[in-house]
């Protein structure tokens, strides 16, 4: 149940960000992708995990 909750939370957040860019700001939907990746970010020892949607630019 916890995993399902975290997945849903992630999905809702990324979808809302995409919808805002596409539906409100008019960015072509073909330029905004959702990777679906969920990770508890701890890239650096001292970094605190955060709840966030991250952008990765691609060509």
């Amino acid at each position: 149940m916890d995993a399902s909750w975290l997945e849903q939370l992630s999905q809702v957040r990324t979808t809302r960000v995409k919808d805002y860019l596409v539906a409100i700001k008019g960015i072509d939907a073909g330029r905004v992708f959702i990777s679906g990746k969920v990770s508890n970010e701890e890239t650096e020892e001292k970094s605190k995990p955060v709840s966030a949607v991250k952008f990765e630019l691609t060509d």
Partner: protein
Amino acid sequence: MSKNVSSEKGEKAALAIAGSFDGGGAFSFAGDLEPLDFRNYSSLKLDLSSFDLSATAPYWRKYLGRGLDKGMLNVEASFDINENILDGANGIMIDQLTLGEKVESEDSLGLPIGLAVAILKDRQGKMELPPLKLSGDLEDPSISISGIVMKALDNIIVKIATSPFSILGGLGGGSGDEDLSTVLFAVGQTDLNANLQSQLDKMAKILEERPGLKVDLSSTIDEAPEIQLFQRILISNKALEIQSGIARSSDPIALLKSYSAASYEENAIAVYRDLMGIPDPTMEETIAGVPEAPVAIQPSKEAPAEEPTKKGLLGSVGSFIKKVAGAKPEDSADAPVTPDTTEVVTSEDAPEVVVELPPFDEIEARLLAEEAF
């Protein structure tokens, strides 16, 4: 054209060269230098305009692993050499650069050229590279001018690809210093508030100004507080189910919308009472066998010596009931009739049972341990 050419050491000569290319474009090269030892002293400026890059396509395939369909190069550069030390700066603008297919090349430098182009190329098809600084000691045998240029280009392309927002930040209309790559959400937050919308507006502006860019969205989660919130939502939901007797939605996102942090403690106590079989005083229930005996529940301000177990607490209440009804406790005729966690207050009309609840953190821990939701 050159003037004042002398073979004397230390003498400088003026240089001015201009020309054009077959495929279009022009250049000029001007300044002064020591003609017999340009490494000792040179100060030159180069202007190159509309140089057709398609002639360089073989080099793109070899070193960058990409074909080149078209592009026009414009350069404004200055070079100063004093006693073998090179110090130069370039302004480079490439117009209508169009990359071709990816190609395999053993000599490829592996640079993310496609991403760099997408980041730099604006809506008019112009790419202005960040200032390219050239410096080095030409006396050092391991250093060559071409090596310095390649290293500087490598640094620029890698920086563009690895820290794109440091290049693009200013396009969004902000200071350029803020981190646009991460949209932070508070625990349980799913709506885009004004702050998040403002950040996304800047991202949209960048995408508008850079039509070759795409964006991949991924999510990260700070699991501990998000899971804690989820458990509280479920506990609150359970309380509402107990109250209404009707099963509610199990969709976590729907439950999130109706969750009230302000009511959580009250709801958790309600679920605890249900779990432990402690009657709700607001229901004005009477305990079987104890006519007109109201039961008041009172959260404790201090932790009891031991947390009451379900059996223990219910047993205590049961013992009290039996005493009032004139029966003996189950376990022993000598067993105390007043449990640790129960106070008995009597009045002339009816006895009142005051059950002390444990501190709230213990109540919450118990609910989580029992998964009472």
